[in-house]
């Protein structure tokens, strides 16, 4: 892919085409990525593609994957799913039937992931995904694995931690984007806050693509809750609301469960974001990040102008999990790999990891990575606590 990267700035789209068509060298395993590469979520797709390419390069430099006496190199192929189910299904068709992809190392968007899953499960193709819904998991989906933390992993430790910091917290308002992720998250969020004794004053929705947030800010300010939870809202939207809230003089606890990028938040909100808690952001340049993560993060900043986050780095972890499973199974047959993955141990970018989550989903298909709570302090994400899921603890104590 190096050639591809050099030609990109030159705009040689045609050359890219040739490359995309050519790459069927004999001992190359294609790893698919299906993510939005255009439109407002393109930044996630670009980040995920980049992280996957780094992982593939890393594996190839290590001498590839040797299985049953044969050595395979990884190659990443990216497809734009435009965040829609139709494109997701078409991506899957193209990947599986035209390009012979057997492993999907990363996919973004609940609707396209569900569309792909209908095909990958039937055709026996491993599908790594970042979908936040419970609906994509379960023992009936044995080829499906989740590569990042979802609300079911994050919310309980995240909210409990916040409540501990602010014991006199009584009221909250929840603001959700009207999209698949927002709809999956909202009931869990309401339920979890309630179990912590926090009363929900309002749970409001807004359309993705909204540009003006004064009305919702005015409403929040007049309800004057102790806390505002922005659930699955993307950082730029949250930033806009926080800025308006600041103008209106509201002060309280700010919570971003899907808060992935502090930079994006700061770009919009500035000082108004100070003190916000983020559930899905990890500062991969901080001291608590691993060496691998620091290096990746710096590289991404260089190449994309933006650091990595919990979503984009996940393709790196998925590829390392796949390598470990291939070696363990001594095979590149997805049929065998899917049986090995639930019990495989591998080195993720966070450190040693494996799969779990059987208690919640009835099948161990959730990648075990730490839940990292960060807070915006002086415009930077500062890690407050990093809690390993109990299963990961048990795994590392073995």
């Amino acid at each position, binding site marked *: 892919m190096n050639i591809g990267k050099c030609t*990109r700035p030159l*705009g040689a789209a045609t050359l890219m085409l040739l490359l995309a068509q050519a790459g069927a060298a004999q001992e190359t395993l294609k790893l698919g990525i299906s993510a939005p590469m*255009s*439109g*407002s*979520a*393109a*930044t996630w797709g*670009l980040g995920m593609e980049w992280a996957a390419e780094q992982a593939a390069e890393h594996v190839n430099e290590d001498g590839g994957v040797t299985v049953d006496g044969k050595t395979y190199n990884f190659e990443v192929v990216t497809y734009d799913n435009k965040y829609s189910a139709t494109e997701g299904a078409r991506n899957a068709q193209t990947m599986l039937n035209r390009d012979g992809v057997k492993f999907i190392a990363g996919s973004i968007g609940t609707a396209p992931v569900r569309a792909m899953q209908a095909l990958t499960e039937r055709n026996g193709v491993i599908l790594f995904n970042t979908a936040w819904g419970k609906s994509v998991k379960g023992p009936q989906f044995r080829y499906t694995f989740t590569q990042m933390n979802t609300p079911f992993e994050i919310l309980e430790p995240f909210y409990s931690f916040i409540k501990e910091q602010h014991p006199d917290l009584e009221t909250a308002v929840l603001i959700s984007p*009207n999209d698949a992720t927002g709809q999956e998250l909202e009931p869990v969020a309401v339920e979890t806050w309630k179990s912590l004794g926090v009363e929900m004053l309002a749970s*409001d*929705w*807004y*359309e993705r*693509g*909204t*540009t*003006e*947030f*004064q*009305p*919702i800010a*005015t*409403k929040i300010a*007049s309800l004057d809750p102790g806390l505002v939870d922005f659930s699955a809202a993307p*950082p*730029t939207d949250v*930033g*806009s609301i926080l*800025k308006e809230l600041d*103008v*209106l*003089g509201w002060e309280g606890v700010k919570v971003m469960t899907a808060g992935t*990028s502090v*930079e*994006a938040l700061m*770009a*919009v909100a*500035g000082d108004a974001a100070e003190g916000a808690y983020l559930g899905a952001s990890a500062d991969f340049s901080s001291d608590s990040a691993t060496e691998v993560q620091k290096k990746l993060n710096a590289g991404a900043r260089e190449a*994309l*102008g*933006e650091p990595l986050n919990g979503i984009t780095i996940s393709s790196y972890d998925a590829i390392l999990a796949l390598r470990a499973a291939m070696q363990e199974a001594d095979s590149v047959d997805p049929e065998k790999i899917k049986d090995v993955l639930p019990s495989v141990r591998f080195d993720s970018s966070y450190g040693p990891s494996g799969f779990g989550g059987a208690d919640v989903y009835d099948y161990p298909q959730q990648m075990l990575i730490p839940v990292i709570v960060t807070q915006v302090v002086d415009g930077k994400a500062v890690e407050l606590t990093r809690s390993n899921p109990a299963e990961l603890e048990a795994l590392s104590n073995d």
Partner: protein
Amino acid sequence: MELFVQLLANTLQIGAVYVLFALGLTLIFGVMKIVNFAHGAFFTAAALIVTSMVPFATVELGVPLWAGYLLAAFAAIAVVLSIGALVYSIGFQHVLKDLNGSFILSIGLLLILNGAYLAIYGGAPRSVPQVLPGTVNVFGATLTAQRLALVIVAAVVTGGLYLLIERTRLGLALRAVAMDQEAAMLQGIPYRRVALYGFLIGAALAACAGVLMAPINAVTPVSGDEFLIKAFIIIIIGGLGSVTGAIIGGLFIAMVESVGGYFFDPSTATLAMFILVIGFLLVRPQGILGNVE
């Protein structure tokens, strides 16, 4: 009382940008009889240029922030005018008065421009520092100084445009062309040149909105497109091609968003807006001030 003042302030803040954006769209429709789907791309280009010019001017040239911003504003408008002239000459001038042809042409241009922005600037949101920090209190409503400036500048620009349309020879030509192109040509008005001017003024208005919004909202390669759908609704309500209609429609939609978002939720307000516009069209298909086609 205080609440209503705040809701009114919200309406004006939101409406100011909508009006600028919709004015350009409606002007272009008026003179060229085309629906320009790529209008948002002018907004985005201007906002993106501001985000890259301001740091350059303040750091490399060492000028103060306000001067850097003004410099960036002029550069942005100049670049957008060049882009406008380019897309006009390679595309739009060949599809004048062809509704379907121009529509699909503008979609093609939108895909190219958005792809180019993504390739040049990346998808990450970009921002510039606030030029006018701080908040002001007007009759009990609070708003940022930056927003207040935006409302004032937008009002001045809108007023200026109104004078241009009503009082100048160019304005007369624009109106004549919008009303009846063939009759205007018979009167010796050079249609193609007037159409180009109309198009460029429209693009400049979008650029102006982009320049004003850059210090307020984060800028992404698709920022402008999100205003486009609202702007369509506004010009339907105001009447296609009507300048006054675009102003009234812009403020009206801003009010629906402001009041509906407060009493219900923003998602419901968005839905209400669409239903309203359908209802509106049925009662008064030509909009508030539109001419019957």
